[in-house]
């Protein structure tokens, strides 16, 4: 067993000392208390005393070397050790070169280029599967804050703003001022508006309604367009008198019809691919859509709704399929359809109602709409109606051109003053 006599600490912060004398050589017998070496620091010379007895078996440094403090200066062993390993002194090790710089891979954080948001808003959004950068913020410099996400979050508890009676209504976002009511198209439900609602920079409350026979609303009283309008009218009246309306397809036709109902003041209309302005509809789609049993069949039908099939969210197909598996959705909608369409003919028209409407009205059409012909819709409209014909959109322009659509909704609402 060997014991090392260390180069002594000769200063609080000194890490090395110069060896100025070695009083022993290899093989020497050392007694406890003997001075075996002398080292020099900046300040003075220090004697190094053996604290144990033994035979010198190693002398790592020579006189003149710079020794590292608290590293062995003299190593003692037994006689046997001495015979086994008498080592030559070595030169003092070169000063430690600098260790290679530790390379840290710095991952550049992708710049979102999107708005700001409060930590709380981000947490709520994440918990509810909402994409924060698609939500319009009303906080400082456009930051998304609590009030912008509260209504969007299905779990936020505050969102169950529903009409007392009648149709199922849900708040997509709580706000203030005249509410904006979203009305979905045939075969859809209010959830269709969730994505775009997040992108709309309005302080208003955003509400969405399930039409009769759709979503969580009861079936229509009778299989007719009028019964749908009546149910919607009752529902809106139960919640207030002034609304902005946003509608899609069948929902857009309902919105136009609502604009002439007593007791309701419709401040603005934003209509996406409205029904009820032309006479035809893709009857094959309606039939195929309602008849589809598998997700694959449904997906094939629903792709007809968009110009670029990539724009159809697979989640939308899955949700529709799931709803059908969970209840008699298709059967209920079949009944609704019977009162609306006959083959490829629309059984209702809202042209007369639209002609009467005095408020701001904007119609957004997809040039490549295969369900309801955009050119048929875009005929002989009143000069006060603003029409946006989107070159690359189909029947779902609010999904296919979401940000533009969101902006158009906000502009229409604001333009009502």
């Amino acid at each position: 067993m060997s014991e090392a006599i260390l180069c002594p600490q000769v200063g609080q912060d000194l890490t090395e000392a110069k060896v100025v004398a070695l009083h022993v050589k290899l093989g020497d017998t050392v007694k406890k208390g003997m001075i075996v070496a002398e080292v020099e620091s900046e300040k003075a010379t220090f004697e190094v005393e053996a604290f144990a007895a033994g035979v010198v078996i190693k002398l790592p440094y020579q006189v003149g070397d710079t020794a590292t403090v608290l590293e062995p200066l003299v190593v003692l062993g037994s006689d046997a050790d001495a015979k086994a390993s008498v080592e030559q002194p070595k030169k003092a090790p070169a000063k430690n070169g600098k260790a290679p710089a530790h390379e840290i891979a710095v991952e550049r954080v992708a710049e979102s280029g999107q708005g700001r948001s409060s930590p709380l808003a981000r947490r709520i959004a994440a918990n509810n599967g909402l994409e924060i950068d698609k939500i319009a913020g009303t906080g400082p410099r456009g930051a998304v804050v609590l009030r912008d996400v509260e209504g969007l979050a299905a779990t936020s508890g505050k969102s169950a703003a529903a009409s007392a009676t009648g149709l199922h209504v849900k708040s997509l976002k709580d706000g203030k001022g005249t509410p904006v009511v979203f009305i979905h198209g045939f075969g859809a439900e209010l959830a269709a508006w969730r994505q775009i609602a997040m992108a709309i920079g309005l302080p208003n409350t955003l509400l969405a309604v399930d039409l009769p026979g759709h979503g969580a609303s009861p079936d229509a009283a009778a299989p007719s367009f009028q019964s749908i309008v009546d149910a919607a009218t009752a529902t809106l009246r139960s919640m207030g008198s002034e609304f902005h309306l946003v509608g899609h397809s069948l929902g857009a036709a309902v919105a136009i019809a609502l604009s002439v109902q007593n007791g309701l003041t419709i401040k603005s209309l934003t209509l996406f691919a409205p029904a009820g302005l032309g006479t035809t509809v893709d009857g094959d789609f309606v039939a195929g859509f309602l008849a589809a049993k598998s997700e694959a069949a449904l997906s094939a039908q629903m792709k007809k709704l968009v110009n670029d099939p990539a724009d159809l969210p697979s989640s939308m197909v899955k949700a529709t399929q799931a709803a059908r598996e969970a209840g008699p959705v298709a059967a209920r909608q079949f009944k609704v359809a019977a009162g609306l369409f006959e083959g490829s003919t629309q059984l209702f028209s809202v042209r007369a109602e639209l002609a009467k409407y005095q408020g701001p009205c904007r119609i957004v059409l997809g040039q490549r709409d295969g369900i309801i012909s955009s050119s048929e819709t875009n005929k002989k409209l009143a000069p006060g109606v603003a029409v946006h014909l989107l070159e690359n959109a189909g029947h779902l322009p609010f999904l296919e051109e979401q940000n533009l659509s969101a902006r158009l909704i906000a502009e229409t609402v604001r333009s009502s003053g």
Partner: protein
Amino acid sequence: MAKAPPRENAPPKALLEKLFRTAYSIRVFETEGIKLYRQGLIRGYFHPYLGQEGIATGACAALSKGDYIASTHRGHGHCIAWGADIKRMVAELLQKETGYCRGYGGSMHIADITTGNLGANGIVGAGTPLGVGAALAAQVRGSDAVTVTFTTDGATNNGTFMESLNLAAIWNLNFILIIENNQYAVSTPIGDSTRETDLYKRGIAIGVESHLVDGNDPLAVHDLMVEAVKKCRAGQGPILIEARTYRHMGHHVNDPGKYMPEDKLKYYKDRDPVDRARNDFVEMGGATAAEIAAIEKQVQDEFEEAVEFSKNSPEVSVEEFREFAAVY
């Protein structure tokens, strides 16, 4: 230099033995401790009491159980003279759980409040107000306990020196302040720090009974302290004592003390307090060479045992430290 007051009777042999044993224990602790430092077993700061052993040795021998001491950054000697356990002292310096302060304090902070040791102190001069405070607490309690603060010449130019000695004076506290005048504030000679180098005179200025004694004469320190303690307990405190001495080396273990003139160092080394205690024990107490050798061996063995004990002691627990930290 004041002489020890003449004795009517020869001091008892037991006292002389105690003085020698204490002074020698301090000497061994410091010289062996420095070796442990050099070999890295002791880390941090280490201010040896070498050359000043006579003061702590003489002063503590005049105190009783229930009294208090407060010490300096150069505190090992006071601790040992106060009767501390060498094992727990070494363990503290070796950062072990079994140390006086569980390795949390170190050389400059050994304290043992259970025995009235208010502790060494890393702040020069801080022991003076702390000692006066202990004396105040004793007075409020109605106790006749005496508190002794060992301080240094370097600390006498600090504001708290006068502030707290004055408080002790206006409240007649059982307080004895011993200035260990080793004539250097770190490396600055006393003449550069003050115009009046007779430090005991500072007490006179504020009405405190003050004395000068040869700090290298343990018996003289002891005898003067016996009188001072008696006066204190009779309500005549506080008392200031300047004990003049000299270090055997620089300020700390890494200070070679090149600024200390060789002739002066030789003068004081020739008047070594440990030799003085040994000679007193032999000459006045009739101790034989064999008795001396036996004591020296006991002391050396005790230190070696303490090192072994410390090396074999458990390391401090980081987990317990974290629990401790939670109280803050």
